[in-house]
């Protein structure tokens, strides 16, 4: 085999390997998109707006969490069996735990998951703590169910979340239960 033939074979082999790796990565992102769109992530992490047919997720702000510029008055007092209320955006939730604001899941480095590692993400979902080490993740995030995702699913979800357009949106910190709330 001449030198140029050898070089050609190596080139074809390398391209084939790269293509396989790329296809695999793309498969993972596609699988992640499927899981994100079927597991209800947009229900709370994409702000909802009112349309002619009722509220629907505003996909121009997909997965960017509770809008920082959406000023909210104090949540209504819980009454009887009605213990939870949600904002019109579906991104702020008041209940016995206080008020939770859904996180920015886009890869914005300062306000989203841009600097997160896969391990940070997996630890968060598995432990129900911020980055696996910080404060508890609050309702309505369904940690008790999502912690059962297997490793491959969580890797796919994270790969997809890292692939969506980064949106800058600094979500406020949660509020503790007020002294007059039903949480007492």
């Amino acid at each position: 085999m001449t030198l140029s033939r050898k070089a050609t074979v190596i080139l074809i082999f390398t391209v084939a390997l790269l293509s396989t790796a790329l296809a695999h990565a793309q498969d993972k992102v596609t699988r992640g998109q499927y899981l994100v769109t079927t597991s209800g992530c947009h229900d709370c992490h994409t702000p909802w707006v009112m349309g002619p047919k009722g509220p629907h997720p505003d996909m121009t702000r997909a997965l960017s969490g509770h809008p920082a510029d959406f000023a909210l008055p104090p949540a209504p007092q819980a009454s009887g069996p009605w213990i939870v209320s949600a904002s019109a955006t579906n991104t702020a939730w008041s209940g016995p735990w206080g008020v939770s604001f859904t996180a920015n899941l886009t890869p914005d480095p300062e306000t989203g998951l841009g600097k997160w590692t896969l391990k940070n993400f997996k630890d968060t979902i598995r432990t129900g703590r911020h980055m696996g080490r910080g404060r508890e993740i609050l309702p309505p995030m369904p940690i008790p169910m999502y912690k059962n995702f297997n490793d491959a699913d969580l890797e796919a979800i994270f790969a997809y979340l890292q692939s969506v357009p980064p949106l800058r949106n600094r979500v406020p910190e949660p509020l503790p239960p007020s002294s007059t709330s039903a949480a007492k």
Partner: protein
Amino acid sequence: MRAMFARIVLLSLAASIAIAGDAPLPQPPADAVAFTPRYPLWTDGMSKRRWLHVPKGASIDKSDPDAWEFPRGTRAWKEFSRDGVPVETRTIERLADGSWRYLTYAWNASGTAATLAPEDGIPERGIPSRADCLACHEGAPAPILGYSAVQLTTSLAPALGYLHGNCGHCHNDAALPALDLTLQQRSTDPKASAARTYASLVGRASRFRPHGAADAQRLVAGHPEHSVLVSRMKSRDPLTRMPPLGVSVVDAEGVALISRWIEQQIQQPQEEAP
């Protein structure tokens, strides 16, 4: 052969039951070493006793001074007492496969006997779940946090020692790289790790912002009252306070130590370690 197999099965079953049920606390053996870290973790003012036991003939690999490698079979105990009565004992054990097992034992009211706490802990008594054990212990280079070169032999400025002992097991470059906040100190080059801590604290924007604040800094030189580091240490809100677990009472002495340090020793951003 069949009898031997049956015996192994029975022994395994007995071991499983012992782990899952009301297993009594295994006491530290006579040759366990009692130790006290220089920079202890604040745990609501409880007093603590600690022991380490390494199997006979085995030794700790200290070739990386800041990440000691404990041999299989190593076990550590930490006993928490209030008013002289033991309330809880936590154990960490390195298993034959190299993994670590974390168990917590709850003492009875008179402090005469302790039994294994359930996997979810006993929240009303402040006894952590197994997952909570991992949250702190698996963020550090070695999970036995109080038995390390820094904790046993390294002289640090008191504030840096406090931050190392109370925060550094999570706030380090390996556990939470996204935060770029390093409070862990190193025995090999304490000056460099102190400089890294200053650089990641002083004048740096805080990801956490109090409600209504457009901006916040982790540490404002000379101003503890404006420093998120202090406000989160002082917070009684479980969603805000630091550390986020294992603590429910503010460490007033710790807050005073860090506040004095910020007020008196950090006057300029990125000042050299005192």
